[in-house]
């Protein structure tokens, strides 16, 4: 196993032959649709009530028929996972890490196919879909390596006559609840962190993208993770809630909306009869991310940076920008250029290489976002279509600070521009918000950059670039305040959330002698 981590290379989609290979993989996938996604509980392949995931770019296409788990299935899966916990936690870390690395290899060998699946099931444009596969591979490799580092324990102060040691042990059966927007990467990341540290996992993926989650689980099983140690439970929030409430669960790893996250925190922290431990919740939640544009910013960089941050993947990234706080000195010029640039964005199917803004995930999201768009008069608006869950990319300007477009996470292709008197003024506006996930700053003043870096509450600050696209090992990701409970996914501290430390002190003095 290699020990220096390197990010998985992205597909070089700017080359025609690579694009052709991607399209061939898509055609091959299309011929196999719809896929079947049963529950995987221990060694059992379990069927249940069927629900479909559809192609957001063409909702008549069923991508997968999945089988919804009920509370009873959750119960069975946790029972199997308790057996799995016994087996998996006793495997040497090296063996567990090797299994994860093998799983990464399997994903690597299915590179194009899995990107095609994310294109279809999540409506991710190719470059984003490919990034999702690469990030899934990165998480597997990165956590495998980090687990080996953690296994060595930490040095402690030693005294004559005593031997002190500390090592990390798995916390216990872990429930993973995943979102649809990084259907491969986030599921793979949360699952592999738990597995790498010796925990059995019950995965409840988002109902919009069960087939992507199954691809991850299949790879891990094929790589040698025992079936008991990793269960797959497709379905909506019903199995999610049952998972959180079960007293046998030790850790809950959740990524999704703040509403669901707060509900999970509350349930998890309510003791139920039979429960003998405090559950730990790792929650990565929403954001309301702002980009500050200083008077000395290079607008040639700002315009593409804002477009990419706000409208890439139709704004459906937790890191996406939805506010731009623009210094008065450049506000008029930037507003005009942005409005002009908005109309160059092509709204279209995720599978088209020429698409800039794909559809949103489902009809509920479409209606929710349209509700926001209809609540004020846009400054500029792009195209839309009616053959999928499309929403027109939309710019607002000059809304009052308490407007819901400025305060709430929209999770769609909507950007509002606000004029500020200074960078400090912008920092105050950011500081007043409840979320603190990502943020951006365009400035060419080293002191301003330093000041904002110190002052910002956000978990990830990006300077003079887009604010999306965190890379494993390079931009450890996660926010504070209502955006999350803090650990940085893809960073060196993440695995600590999945273990407990055991300190052992041995008296080495016998008959007055140090032995």
């Amino acid at each position, binding site marked *: 196993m290699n020990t220096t981590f*390197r*990010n*998985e*290379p*992205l597909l*070089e*989609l*700017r080359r*025609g032959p690579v*694009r052709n290979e991607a399209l061939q993989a898509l055609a091959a996938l299309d011929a196999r649709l719809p896929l079947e996604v049963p529950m995987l509980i221990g060694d059992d392949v379990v069927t249940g009530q069927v629900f479909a995931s559809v192609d957001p770019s063409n909702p008549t296409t069923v991508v997968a028929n999945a089988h919804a788990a009920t509370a009873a299935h959750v119960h069975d899966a946790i029972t199997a996972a308790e057996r799995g916990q016994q087996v998996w936690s006793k495997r040497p870390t090296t063996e567990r890490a090797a299994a994860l690395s093998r799983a990464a290899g399997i994903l690597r060998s299915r590179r194009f196919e899995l990107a095609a699946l994310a294109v279809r099931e999540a409506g991710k444009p*190719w*470059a984003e879909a490919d990034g999702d596969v690469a990030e899934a591979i990165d998480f597997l490799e990165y956590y495998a390596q980090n687990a080996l580092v953690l296994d060595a324990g930490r040095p402690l102060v030693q005294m004559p006559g005593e031997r002190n040691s500390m090592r990390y042990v798995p916390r216990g059966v872990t429930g993973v609840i995943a979102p649809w927007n990084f259907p491969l990467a986030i599921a793979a990341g949360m699952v592999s962190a738990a597995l790498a540290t010796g925990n059995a996992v019950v995965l409840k993926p988002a109902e919009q993208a069960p087939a992507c989650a199954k691809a991850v689980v299949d790879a891990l099983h094929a790589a040698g993770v025992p079936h008991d140690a990793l269960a797959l439970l497709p379905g909506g929030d019903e199995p999610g809630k049952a998972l959180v409430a079960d007293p046998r669960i030790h850790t809950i790893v959740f990524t999704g909306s703040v509403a669901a996250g707060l509900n999970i925190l509350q349930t998890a922290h309510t003791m139920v009869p039979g429960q003998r431990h405090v559950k730990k919740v790792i929650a990565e939640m929403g954001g309301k991310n702002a980009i500050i544009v200083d*008077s*000395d*910013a*290079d*607008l*040639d960089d700002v*315009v*593409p940076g804002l477009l990419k941050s706000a409208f890439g993947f139709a704004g459906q990234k937790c890191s996406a920008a939805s506010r731009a706080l623009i210094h008065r*000195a450049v506000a008029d010029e930037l507003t005009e*250029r942005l*409005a*002009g*640039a908005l*109309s*160059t964005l*092509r709204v279209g199917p995720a599978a*088209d*290489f*020429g698409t*800039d803004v794909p559809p949103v995930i489902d009809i509920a999201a479409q209606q929710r976002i349209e509700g926001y768009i209809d609540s004020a008069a846009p400054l500029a608006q792009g195209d839309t279509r009616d053959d999928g869950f499309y929403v027109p990319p939309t710019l607002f300007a000059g809304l009052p600070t308490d407007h819901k477009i400025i305060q709430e996470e929209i999770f769609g292709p909507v950007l509002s521009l606000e004029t500020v008197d200074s960078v400090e003024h912008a920092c105050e506006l950011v500081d007043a918000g409840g979320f603190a996930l990502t943020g951006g700053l365009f400035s*060419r*003043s*080293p*002191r301003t950059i330093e000041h904002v870096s110190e002052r910002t509450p956000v978990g990830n600050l990006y300077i003079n670039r887009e604010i999306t696209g965190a890379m494993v090992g390079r931009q450890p990701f996660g926010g504070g305040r209502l955006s999350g409970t803090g650990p940085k996914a893809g960073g060196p501290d993440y695995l600590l959330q999945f273990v407990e430390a055991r300190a052992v002190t041995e008296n080495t003095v016998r008959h007055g002698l140090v032995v």
Partner: protein
Amino acid sequence: MAPNARIPGMAAPTQERPLDLERPIREIGTDLAARMPRPRAVSTARVERRMTELLMKDPALRAALFRFVDVRPACSSPADVTRHLHEFLVDAESKTARRATGITGRPLAQRPIAVAAAAGVKRMAQQFIIGEDARDALPEITKLWRNGVETTVDLLGEATVSETEADTYMRRCEETLRALASAATKPGQVNLSVKVSALTPLLRPTAPERGIEGARPRLERLLRVAKEVGAHLHVDMESFDTREAITALTLDLLSKPEFADGPSAGIVLQAYLVDSPEHLDELLHWAQSTPRTHPFVIRLVKGAYWDHEVVQAAQMGWAPPVFTDRHECDRNFEALTKRLIDATPTVKVAIASHNLRSISHAAAYADARGVGNEDLEFQILRGLGDDTQAAIAATGRQVRAYCPVGDLVAGMAYLVRRLLENTANDSFLAAAASGTDTAELLEAP
């Protein structure tokens, strides 16, 4: 051992060289070098040389200066200029930079320093940029014409992010073509270099067809205007992300029957690209099968986006599309030079370089093949290659200066790129400036 000292009867070297170019290269190069103004004799050149040396030795100061030049046009007041300069210098860790901080940190010195720094950037810019617009630039251009130097004008601009901005750029191009035409004294004098990325906001690396369709109507219109006024239109090459779109669009438009008898037009081949030999195959194949009244011009350059290509590839995990060994790039430049000269008169060749070796090699090979000014010219960048231009012109070879036109804001990206190039440790100009002797500069790569 000299070739004629070979022991009789011994096998000849495995690769028989049909032409020994090294001797004529040395002769041509030495002659050109002798015709360049002696740096020591010119005081501004000496200051500049000292500056270049200093910057090469002190990467932190170099970074500080470039960041200052970059932000200068966005500074609203002298205080703002001073603040940025001061911050960059504080940032730079070198001793030189720290000394300078002492000066700018004093409030009393603020205004003069800011004014001087602002003026410095402006002066520097004026060395590379010949005017704010075509009319402003005309005196300088006609002066070059009178001295037997041809020109190509490049309109600097901000990045094009909207259709309106693309239209504005197209109109500027059109106005420039007409303004130059009205001042021209002989046919073929008007020559404009255009960037496809300025003609459309739709260039997408993964969807070349979008950029092609976006730029098509505007480039087509410029070709018509160029034909009307008898101008040459040259399509510049940009980052690798856009090469496919730029090439396909240019060749496609020039294949239209209406452009077969004009205007004169051309494209650029970047020798730093690993697959440039295949790109040349494509260009030559097209040129051979598309008869034109004015032969298709291919400008050979090394390539201006080397850092960008290498950084982008590293961040994405790709093999870089460019050579990473200087010598490989230079050898490829020479191999492509030969193929291009061999392809005359189907194509016309422009060798665009400030590198004495690259230039001398092209001249020597052209001489050996009997290819003259009809089919071959040399091109230099205004401000960087002025001495080279004078020397080439003095030897009776055709030379053309690439003359950027635009305001300070628009010109800054161009200026920064040129400055970086000029002071990069492995650049020819930096080596020449630091006093490397001519024989060494002329060695085979």
